[in-house]
């Protein structure tokens, strides 16, 4: 059994006018089935409004299913008694680093989550130390988060989630606001946590380059999962992806263009090393 099991998951948003009358109903997640094994690194792609964030918010019970079920580590999110244990097991990191910082000192910020779920004080500090070390921000423990770069702020946000020792971390466009360096830092940190601590990672992004090292990629469109496979399987389908408003990494696109122009280059090239190899041999 997977750590995340979505079965025919549906989420409808009800839009109401000022008097509270329902004006419209929007099906943001439409019968999604998803099974994520512990320790996997999963990415979710999809056009704006395709339902990625709505799906993600179900995984830590910020939203509840309208229909269908979602199990996190075997626990049904729609059962109220499970809420605390689900929040402990699935941590979220959002797009805007500034909206996630609460305290005025880095270590207090990281300690906030565990304190909130009732971890005893002495243990909080050992967890904070471990979390900050695992994202490479231990030297900054006494700094003010407001004076960190965007990439550093996001790593502190990840440490804050880590300190709750979740089995699973959901990153919802964690790099959208970052410069190239910060982007690399955050993706590298996510992979390290996945590799060394076995944390299950769900990454949502609009940057195709960031998902090439995932185990599986899911593509959403209008609330449904329409493609699923390894990055190589997904990115060999350039035309299908474009139809879903997506793209491929720049080198994959270049390789594809060269192949279309008659050069002998294999499909599904994902990195610049692979393209170099294909060109030079």
């Amino acid at each position: 059994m997977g750590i995340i099991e979505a079965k025919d998951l549906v989420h409808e948003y009800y839009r109401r006018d000022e008097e509270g009358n329902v004006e419209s109903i929007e099906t943001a997640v439409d019968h999604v089935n998803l099974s994520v094994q512990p320790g996997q690194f999963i990415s979710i792609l999809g056009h704006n409004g395709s339902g990625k964030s709505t799906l993600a918010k179900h995984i830590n019970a910020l939203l509840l299913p309208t229909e269908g079920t979602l199990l996190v580590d075997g626990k049904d999110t729609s059962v109220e008694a499970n809420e605390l244990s689900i929040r402990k097991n699935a941590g979220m990191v959002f797009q805007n680093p500034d909206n996630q910082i609460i305290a005025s000192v880095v270590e207090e910020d990281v300690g906030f989550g565990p304190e909130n779920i009732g971890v005893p004080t002495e243990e909080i500090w050992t967890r904070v130390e471990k979390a900050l070390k695992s994202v490479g921000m231990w030297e900054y423990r006494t700094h003010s988060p407001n004076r960190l770069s965007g990439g550093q702020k996001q790593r502190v946000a990840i440490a804050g989630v880590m300190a709750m020792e979740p089995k699973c971390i959901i990153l919802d466009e964690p790099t959208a606001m970052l410069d190239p360096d910060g982007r690399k830092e955050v993706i590298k940190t996510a992979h390290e946590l996945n590799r060394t601590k076995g944390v299950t990672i769900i990454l949502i992004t609009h940057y195709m380059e960031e998902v090439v090292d995932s185990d599986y990629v899911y593509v959403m469109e209008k609330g449904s999962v329409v493609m699923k496979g390894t990055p190589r399987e997904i990115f060999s389908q350039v035309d299908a992806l474009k139809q879903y408003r997506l793209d491929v990494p720049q080198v994959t696109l270049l390789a594809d263009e060269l192949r279309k122009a008659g050069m002998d280059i294999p499909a599904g090239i994902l990195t610049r090393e692979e393209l170099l190899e294909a060109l030079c041999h």
Partner: protein
Amino acid sequence: MSLILDHVSYTYSVGSGYEVKALNDVNLKIEDGEFIGIIGHTGSGKSTLVQHLNGLIQATSGTIYYNGADIYDKDYDRKELRTQVGMVFQYPEHQLFETTVFEDVKYGPKNQGLDDKQATLRAFEALQKVKFPEENYDASPFELSGGQKRRAAIAGVIAMKPAVLILDEPTAGLDPKGRDEILGLIREMHDKSGITIILVSHSMEDVANYVDRIIVMEKGAPLFDGAPREVFANYKKLEEIGLAAPQVTYLMHDLYDQGYPVDPQATTVEEAKQEILRVFGNR
């Protein structure tokens, strides 16, 4: 017609003990009708710089001339300046505040003194240009997906038909097709109406594909200023300051280093493709 920055410096929180020198003696000239990209790592001063251009932030020292007039002159109409130099903020949440998306987009034109009918037309036109989904025109700006908020914020500014359009990371959070649509729209507005575009971006690929001139900010001042090919030729220096060149530029350098006579300065997929086809022929 131009924007001139004359020895502009800016310090946040002067006298608080937490002073941050965000701009350091910036001298720049932006000509009418240019398409400029501004890049730089986080905290290098990009947002601070562009907020000076429409008078939202006033320089601690130095001055700015818009079409020859000193915008800090006591008789200068800075309210008018703000409608001529339109600004799409880095975080769309900071500029969406009306109860519906449509009202939000109408706000700018109404504020410019247009009557309700004209403002409504402008709002329709702008929302259609940014391909905002029609069924959400009456939604609250807070009930939108991330990319929809971004489109609404952009529509709100282009509805004012500014002469200079500043966009601070307009494509953050947009899906790939949406990035191309918005940048294509901006390019089209530039080409057709001749408006000046200033685009702040963290995407080296987008900047390489769309702008004519890149200004690289570092520690509060321009470090490089030139055409994309010239600027990205300094990719090693760019990496030292937290930036990068587009992915294809690296590939071209790899090929060049292995002895293939390609032009290592190609910055777009199209340029790289032409160069590779030229050198490798039809193997």
